[in-house]
């Protein structure tokens, strides 16, 4: 029995080595660096500095990501609900064909598009003015926190919708019909009968979106101004402008902590479900 397991180890060794060299080592290194003072002892001084300089940005990042996640949930539920319960064939067909497009556009391209779309003299305001919906003087730029949220939601809704609509399509159709048959409107069927059956999928999609949005650099950098901004931008700035890896690592650990909290909520929830089932 020893030989096959040695062979197996040999087979997975390259993959393990890659994970070790490219992920675990840098992760451990940056974690250690965040807690090490210049002399070599353990210290929280980098965290103190990060907090003094960037406490507003930490809150700003949390605000952006939480609001974007909530809005993503709202739009995804609406779109997946229409795809599942819609009775207007052309609307369902059009939505099904269109909603996935942003999935194939990289964040940086999306950010670039949003710059031209949301600017004071951008496509959106110009269209509103041309349509007579607003005066040129009323036009304001949305290239601030609102721009970041719009870009994130635009980019993540298709991803969560894709998962959610798939899950909704695979539940027993008769459970939907049973609800309508008893007198439930389509919105009640969606919220009370369909959504609880796919809650787990929605949660997974939102957790993945949350972590993705937390780690995007291009969007806050291109869409919004520099103050306040998101932690990714601050980290890039610490490294590029000052070579200050220690503070950047401390900010990174704070990001891990935020992402880890969400992952913990998800894990706790799924364990609870498994115990129930």
């Amino acid at each position, binding site marked *: 029995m020893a030989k096959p397991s040695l062979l197996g180890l040999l087979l997975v060794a390259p993959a393990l080595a890659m994970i070790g060299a490219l992920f675990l080592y840098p992760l451990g290194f940056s974690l250690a660096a965040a807690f090490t003072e210049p002399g070599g002892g353990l210290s929280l001084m980098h965290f103190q500095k990060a907090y003094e300089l960037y406490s507003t940005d930490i809150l700003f990042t949390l605000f952006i990501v939480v609001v974007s996640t909530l809005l993503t949930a709202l739009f995804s539920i609406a779109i997946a609900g229409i795809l599942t319960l819609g009775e207007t064939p052309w609307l369902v067909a059009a939505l099904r064909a269109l909603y996935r497009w942003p999935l194939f556009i990289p964040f940086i391209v999306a950010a670039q598009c949003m710059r031209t779309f949301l600017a004071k003299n951008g496509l959106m305001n110009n269209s509103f003015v041309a349509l007579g919906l607003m005066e040129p003087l009323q036009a304001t730029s949305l290239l601030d926190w609102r721009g970041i949220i719009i870009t994130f939601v635009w980019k993540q809704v298709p991803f969560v919708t894709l998962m959610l609509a798939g899950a909704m399509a695979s539940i*027993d159709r*008769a*459970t939907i*019909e*049973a*609800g*309508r*048959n*008893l*007198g*439930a*409107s389509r919105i*009640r069927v969606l919220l*009370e*009968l369909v959504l*609880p*059956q796919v*809650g787990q999928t929605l949660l997974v999609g939102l957790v993945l979106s949350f972590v993705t949005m937390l780690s995007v650099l291009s969007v806050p950098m291109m869409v919004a101004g520099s103050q306040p901004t998101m932690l990714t931008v601050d980290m890039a700035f610490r490294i590029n402008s000052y070579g200050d890896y220690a503070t950047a690592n401390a900010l990174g650990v704070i990001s891990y902590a935020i992402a880890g909290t969400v992952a913990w909520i998800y894990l706790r929830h799924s364990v609870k479900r498994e115990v*129930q*089932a």
Partner: protein
Amino acid sequence: MDSPVSAAIDVDHLQVNYGSQRVLHGVSLSVSPGEFIAILGSSGCGKTTLLRTIAGFQKAAGGAIRLFGRDVVNTPPEKRGMAMMFQSYALWPHMTVLGNVGYGLRLRGLSKDEIRSRVAAVLKMLNLSGLEDRKVTNLSGGQRQRVALGRALAIEPRILLLDEPLSNLDAKVRIQLRSEIKALQSRLGFTAIHVTHDREEAMTMADRIVVMDAGRIAQVGAPKEVYDHPNSPFVASFMGAENTLDLDVRPAGAGVEVRAGDGSAASYGGPVPVGPVTAYFRDDNASLDDPQARVDGAIVLPGTITQRTYPGGHYRYVIAVGDRHFTVTDDRYHELDRPVGLRLPLASLHLFPQTQTSGGFHA
């Protein structure tokens, strides 16, 4: 089938399409209040489509559906005020028994206490007392379908639609639930439409049977009427008359003379179509006799026994007559390869003017 306004369900020249294909070709059916109707047919005949169109899950392409005189053909399913049972139970897995059974009441705005007491009453009726807080995923198939029945009955519907609710259950539970549903229907007096492909289920539960074939109603009538007097070869073979035999009927004196291909003949006084006919008969209508026997009002065909099985209670034989095979049930034990006479009483044959049907065992 023109019906007065008092009909509980009045389906009037209903047409339904799937894409460009028409699946219901102008179906008309009137169901009285308190009546139990079974729609019977093989898969693809349109029986489920008819039920789903009545429930509102399938759009009609033409015709009308009136519930107690109210046309609902353009009404969404949630406003039709019916209840339905599904083959897959369709219980909501995230809810308890109380949540499932009480959902219809919750939609109707009843208070929590009221819902609890009414659900308790429904569960008591279905012998499910005490299971209120159980997850439906922790119930057996029979219990689940009982919960589904309770969910449907909790709103005290005037019309209950049953979409093959018993076909996923094992035989014992199925027969038990069959009589429970029937008993509740008699007690509560709701109108029921039950779609099934199980002939016995339809016969035992329904006041009237509707046999459907290829998107049309083939025959409507009381179970005994449809069973004893099928109006077409399709209904005859669907009701179990699966043996077919070509006969020739000629007027003779006051009655007719019925002659089989091999020369066996009998005279008969009953009303039968004249000319070449095809006879349909069930295996329990025929019996085994002496090959040379002459019996009044019956044809005796000489043949040999080629197969014998014992399904319980009686023997089932396959008899070869020339190149045709017939199935017959007989109480007595007979040796294989023995020459016998296949006795067919003319009164119990279903005779239809001949089409292109050929003789032999019609499966």
